[in-house]
């Protein structure tokens, strides 16, 4: 039970907003010491942990292409393109992306999108472009909200789409673990099938929230205009 102190350190560290790198490193060292590891083993673990997890950092390989197309105005072009489509709002753009992301993930094409590949260069500028057309100006608060939801649509789409595909990591983890531990013979297809109800629920819940996002943004923009108007009135006096 003593090792749970490490978990507590993580929770407290994140809660008081210390630098996460420090929090994670210190919690790791403390937990390992409480678990009876010696310093040499701990250093070894930091080394092997880094070496075996390099795949999560591969996204930096797409930064060069994102960099050059942004330099030549990709975000601006994405905004212009969306601005011409009068019916599109930020929420509707994101629902469209959520649907595409979830369906492609469900047939195994998770690598088609991602935060570096699609959200930063395309999805966020398009959603912001739709807001720009609607309000004529996008205050920072609204832009922040759109950014959060653009990344959120990507995550929800992938998480609750990929499990419908039979050959994905989480499905294989379940079958390998339960088949070897409990001598079952679960078919990946059965598991994938039972992921479908949750996938539909995820789309409905998140889609509904994205529709409401437009109303929230409308409200925030009205508040923003009101404060701006009050400030100008104040200056006029």
């Amino acid at each position, binding site marked *: 039970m003593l*090792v749970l102190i490490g978990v507590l350190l993580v929770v407290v560290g994140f809660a008081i907003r210390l630098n996460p790198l420090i929090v994670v490193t210190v919690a790791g060292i403390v937990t390992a010491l409480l678990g009876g590891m010696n310093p040499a083993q701990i250093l070894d673990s930091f080394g092997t942990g880094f070496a075996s997890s390099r795949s999560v950092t591969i996204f930096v390989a797409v930064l060069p292409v994102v960099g050059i197309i942004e330099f030549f105005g990709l975000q601006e072009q994405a905004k212009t393109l969306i601005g011409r489509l009068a019916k599109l709002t930020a929420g509707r753009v994101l629902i469209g992306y959520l649907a595409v992301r979830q369906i492609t993930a469900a047939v195994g094409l998770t690598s088609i999108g991602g935060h570096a590949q699609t959200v930063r260069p395309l999805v966020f500028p398009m959603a912001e472009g739709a807001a720009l057309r609607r309000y004529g100006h996008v205050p920072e608060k609204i832009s922040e909200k759109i950014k959060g939801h653009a990344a959120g649509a990507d995550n929800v789409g992938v998480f609750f789409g990929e499990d419908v595909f039979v050959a994905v990591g989480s499905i294989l983890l379940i079958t390998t673990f339960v088949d070897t531990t409990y001598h079952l013979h679960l078919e990946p297809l059965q598991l994938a099938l039972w992921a479908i109800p949750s996938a539909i629920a995820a789309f409905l819940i998140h889609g509904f929230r994205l529709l409401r996002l437009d109303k929230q943004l409308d409200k925030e923009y009205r508040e923003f205009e009101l404060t701006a108007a009050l400030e100008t009135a104040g200056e006029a006096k």
Partner: protein
Amino acid sequence: MINVEAVYWLVGILFVAWASLIAADTNHPRRWGSAAFWGLLGLCFFYSTWVQAGTAPAWILGVAVLVLVVLASTGLLGHGKHRTSTGPERESYAKRFGNKLFIPALTLPLVTVILVLAAPVLSIGGTPLLDPKNTTLVALAIGAVAAVVVALLILKPKNPATPLFESRRILESIGWAALLPQMLTTLGILFTKAGVGTAVGTLASGLLPKGSLIAGVLVYCIGMFLFTVLMGNGFAAFPIMTAAIGWPVLVQGFHGDPAIIFAIGMLAGFCGTLCTPMAANFNLVPSALLEMKNKYGVITAQVGTAIPLLAVNIALMYFLAFH
């Protein structure tokens, strides 16, 4: 065969290249600290090849990783000022190139997907062309290189190193968050080795009142959710919660359908992934990448979906898995 290690070397070379650009930038406020951080990170990517193969001692890499943490958290890592295109310049470029700008952006996913789909039949003299264990990663890297080439051909920048300069700008805005996902994986490994999982499992089964089906479903699903929040991914939580509750209580005790229980249990964990800074690659790296003021803005946007979805998963398991 194009091995996944080749991809890691490409990433390592990029880090070293960005570090050299920073070292050459005399106006950089944290010139040497930043160059050291990104350069050392690149070298770690090379050295890891031998650690992974078991031919080099891992503790040296461990020391290097701790040095990276110190560099990043003592303010020695900083942001440079970058000369990039201005707003009006970008507007005029966008007018000039129009929708052609989307071609490189679409080349990346297109090449990646085609390679992933074609991988099983791509082979030279019987050896597969792409590492069969890591097809997606290798395909993504090839897609990224192809997209840069296409971008250079279409946009014809004055300086062919533009992709490198411009990506350094994005990298520096991500900053230390780029290292965080790997550090969290390490933390997960240390937690598992130290027995955090077993302790949580004991705790969860201790909370469970005997003989109640709804309580069993609740503790399993909420346990998956909370444990995933703590560990940052459902993969670590699944074996623990399943050994503590999913198998002995729900399958053996209440004769539930194992496929439904385990499939939905994992998805209850995914709801946790939406709510935790420990899943840095999904929740903190994007907020850095999008240059958000609030680091936790992505999580804030997701919590409202995660909680109702957890409730739906609990209901689905309760009503579908037990007949």
